[in-house]
Structures are given as structure tokens and as C-alpha cells.
């Protein structure tokens, strides 16, 4: 019995390097050898799909990129799937960024999807306006006068020469806003300064850690659905076209399961130790 107890206590005191190795293997193996676990769509993801699906054909959608390389694995699959859904429905896409590295993220995704996969025309079917410093002041600025803040796109074409921008003078002229956000400024600022004051329908895709902050706006009806982290991206892919996030979910499943297992082991050890101390 004493031997069992000391084994249980030791299970709660594993070297953290061992924990690192186990997590590393748990992430690597499912990426290399996918298990193919079925992804179940949650209502909030379905709401995003339905909201984007209900935009009338030929509408102009503002897609804002507020993420960088560190959160790319979580958000980029959402961006790719969103563009596919929008272009399938013949929508026009105007991209912009509130984060400096967001401009690089949007360039990369638009090159891959709009240019290579769909063969669409810059300035007619889609355009990238790029980054402007000022955080939420940029949103407030384009709410009043877009062309005062953006007089050219990232390729230095004057905005007034772009056919896609015909009739777009303020944020109110967009039919839909989609924020791909990993923090501040991001989804919350779009709700506060554009979508809610001017009644523009809006949806979002965020990192898992941000869901807590954004969910009140979703449940309040100010945002139509939410893609919540990697799992939200995988669920969204499941509704449009399978991609990276679906593949990554196997690794995340196993890693989460192992972390829970470690927590349980740690607690068994803790309870055994506490009982020994009080005995």
C-alpha cells in the first residue's frame, strides 16, 4: 500500500522535460499520421456560415486582417475558407489590416486563393488596401471618410481608379464586415466603432483565447456567429472545404487529452500527499 502511495506521489512530480517530450510526440504523431476524427459543427460556426451565405451575390465585403505570424496557424485556415465561401458566391472582397503584419497575412492568403485558386482580377474582384497605423482610429476614420485614410491600395493604385471601390466612400457602403482577429485592435473595436453604430452585418473568426472577450457581442446579436480558434476553423472548413485546420484538430485533440490526463495525475498525487500529511 505504501509502495502504491509513493508511486502515486511520484506521478505528480514528473520532470517537466518529460512532460515537454510527451506533448511534443502527441502533437507530432497525429500531424504525421492523421487519425481523421470527425469534426462536429457548433451552432456559432453554423451561424457564421449562414451569415456569409446570406449575403446577396455581388456584394462588397470588407475583410480585416488583425493577426500575425504567431497566430497564423489558428486564423489563416479561417481566412482561406472565408475567401473560398465569398468567391464561390461571387462576392467582391476589400481587404485591410489594423495590424502591421496583418498586411503580409492578407497578401499571402489573397495570392493563394484569389489569384492562384480562383484567378480573380485585382481591383475588380478583390483588392488589398493594406495597413494604416492608428488602431481603432482607423475604423473611426473610414466610418466617416474611407478615402481620406486610404487613398491607394498596397500596389500604389489610386483608390478612385479601382472599379471595386466605385460607390465605396465610408464603411457604411460595405454590405458585410468580417474581422479575422487575434487581439487588439480587432473584433471588439469593429463592433464598437463600425458594425453596431452603423448597423452593418458583421461576423468574426478569433483565436480560442479571445472567445471569452467576444462572446458577449455574439450572444447579444451584434456579431453573427463566431469561429472560435482552431476548432472553429475546422468546423467552418467542414462546411465549405476541408483544409489545414481539420488536419490540425487531430493533434489538438490528442494534446488536450494528454494535458487533462496530466492534470488528473497531478491531482491524484496531490490528494494522496494531503491525506498522508493529515494522517
Amino acid at each position: 500500500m505504501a509502495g502504491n502511495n509513493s508511486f502515486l506521489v511520484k506521478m505528480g512530480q514528473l520532470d517537466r522535460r518529460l512532460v515537454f517530450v510527451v506533448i511534443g510526440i502527441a502533437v507530432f504523431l497525429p500531424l504525421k499520421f492523421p487519425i481523421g476524427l470527425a469534426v462536429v459543427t457548433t451552432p456559432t460556426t453554423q451561424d457564421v456560415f449562414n451569415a456569409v451565405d446570406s449575403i446577396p451575390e455581388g456584394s462588397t465585403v470588407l475583410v480585416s486582417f488583425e493577426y500575425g505570424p504567431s497566430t497564423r496557424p489558428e486564423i489563416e485556415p479561417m481566412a482561406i475558407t472565408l475567401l473560398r465561401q465569398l468567391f464561390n458566391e461571387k462576392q467582391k472582397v476589400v481587404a485591410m489590416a489594423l495590424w502591421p503584419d496583418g498586411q503580409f497575412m492578407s497578401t499571402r492568403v489573397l495570392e493563394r486563393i484569389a489569384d492562384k485558386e480562383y484567378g480573380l482580377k485585382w481591383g475588380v474582384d478583390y483588392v488589398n488596401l493594406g495597413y494604416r497605423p492608428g488602431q481603432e482610429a482607423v475604423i473611426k476614420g473610414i466610418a466617416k471618410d474611407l478615402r481620406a485614410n486610404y487613398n491607394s491600395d498596397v500596389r500604389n493604385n489610386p483608390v478612385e481608379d479601382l472599379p471595386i471601390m466605385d460607390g465605396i466612400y465610408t464603411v457604411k457602403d460595405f454590405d458585410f464586415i468580417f474581422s479575422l482577429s487575434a487581439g487588439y485592435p480587432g473584433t471588439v473595436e469593429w463592433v464598437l466603432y463600425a458594425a453596431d453604430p452603423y448597423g452593418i452585418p458583421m461576423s468574426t473568426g478569433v483565436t480560442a483565447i479571445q472567445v471569452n472577450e467576444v462572446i458577449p457581442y455574439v450572444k447579444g446579436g451584434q456579431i453573427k456567429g463566431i469561429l472560435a480558434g482552431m476548432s472553429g476553423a475546422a468546423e467552418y472548413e467542414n462546411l465549405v472545404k476541408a483544409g489545414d485546420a481539420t488536419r490540425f484538430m487531430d493533434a489538438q485533440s490528442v494534446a488536450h487529452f494528454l494535458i487533462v490526463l496530466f492534470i488528473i495525475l497531478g491531482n491524484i498525487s496531490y490528494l494522496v500527499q494531503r491525506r498522508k500529511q493529515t494522517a
Partner: protein
Amino acid sequence: MLWKTQIPVAIVFAVGMLTLIQWFVPHWPFDQIQVHTTQWFDIIAVFAVILGGLNLLKLQLQKVISRGRDWPYALVTIVGFLAMMVYGFSPVGVPEGIRLGDHLQANGSHFRWMFFNVFTPLSATMFALLAFFVASASYRAFRVRNAEATLLLVAGIILMLGRVPLGAKMTAFLPHFMQLPTVQEWIYAVPNLAGARAIMIGIGLGMVSTSLRFILGIEKSFLGGDE
């Protein structure tokens, strides 16, 4: 006193009041305030970026010169900073036929290469390390010490498993309302939402009172010193 206190306080009062008024009086000339002030803000933000860059360079240079703690890292920061400055602002590494400025996003430019092949993997690596630290920290620190900690632990476990396909598979045999994805959705939508809204309302009220304190000159900490 006049220049250091009264004039800055008067400026804050005037700008704060004008910004407030334009929300409630959406007519000329007040409707123009937002258009112009946001552009001023953008311009000031650009200069702030320059100041921030120079400040970074100054601090790192001081560390290298004085051989301070971890100075080799400061040297790496300076080299990286200068390299990106050179590739960003000079014709070095700009592909033929591409204008300076447009090259930042252009295929074949050194700036773009550095961004996608140096900054991106480094940044992703730093973030990926979190998975290991979260695993290790939760193993060592997540303990059922009392009722509140136990509640947090159980909610955490349900969320961790309920958000992934494995959690759905593990509880697929249970009635729908007991399956992990359903329970985690309920946690998000009910207790979590209530807490988040309470915090947001608290923050909102705090922001209103703090803003009023600044506008009315009661709060003067932005002046620096002992004011």
C-alpha cells in the same frame, strides 16, 4: 506652472469636450471633428512608431556598449532592426522593375523574404512554445485545493475536451445534453457570458469615470512627475 499644468489640462478639457459633443451633435461643424481628429491621430501614430524605433535602438545600443545582462541578444535585435530598415527603406534587395515601397510585398524582395522566412517562423515558434508551458504549468499548478479551484478545474477540463473532436467521440454514447460539446457550449453561453458581461460593464463604468476625471482636470497623472 502655466506651461506644465494649466495649458495641458486646458487642451485635454477642450479636446475631450469636443470629442464628446461630436457624438451627440452630428451636424456641421461638429461632424467634421471625427474626420480630422482621426487623421491627426494617424499622423501622430506614425511619428510614435519612429520614436518607438529610435528608443528601441538607443536602449539596445546602451546595453551592448555597457556589456549589460544578455547583451548578445541586444546585438541580435540591433542587427535585425538595421537589416529590416535597410531592406525596407533603401533600394537594396528590391527586384528589378518594382518601385521602392511596392517592394515590401513583392515576390523576390529581401524584405518580404526576411518577413516570411525569419520573422514568421521565429514568431510562430515563440507562440508554439506556449503549448509546452501550458501543459507543464497546468500539470503542476492546477490543484483541487478548495471548492472554487475544483469548479475552475472541472470547467477547464470540460472546455478542453469539449472543444475538440476527441471529446465529442468520448461522450457520443451519452444523451445529447450530457455530451461534452453541449456542456462546454452551455458553460460559454451561460456562466461565462454572465461573468464576462459583468466585467465589461464594470470596465465601461470605470472608463467613463476615468475619462471624466481627465477631462475635468481631476486626474493629472498624464502630466508626469508628482502632479
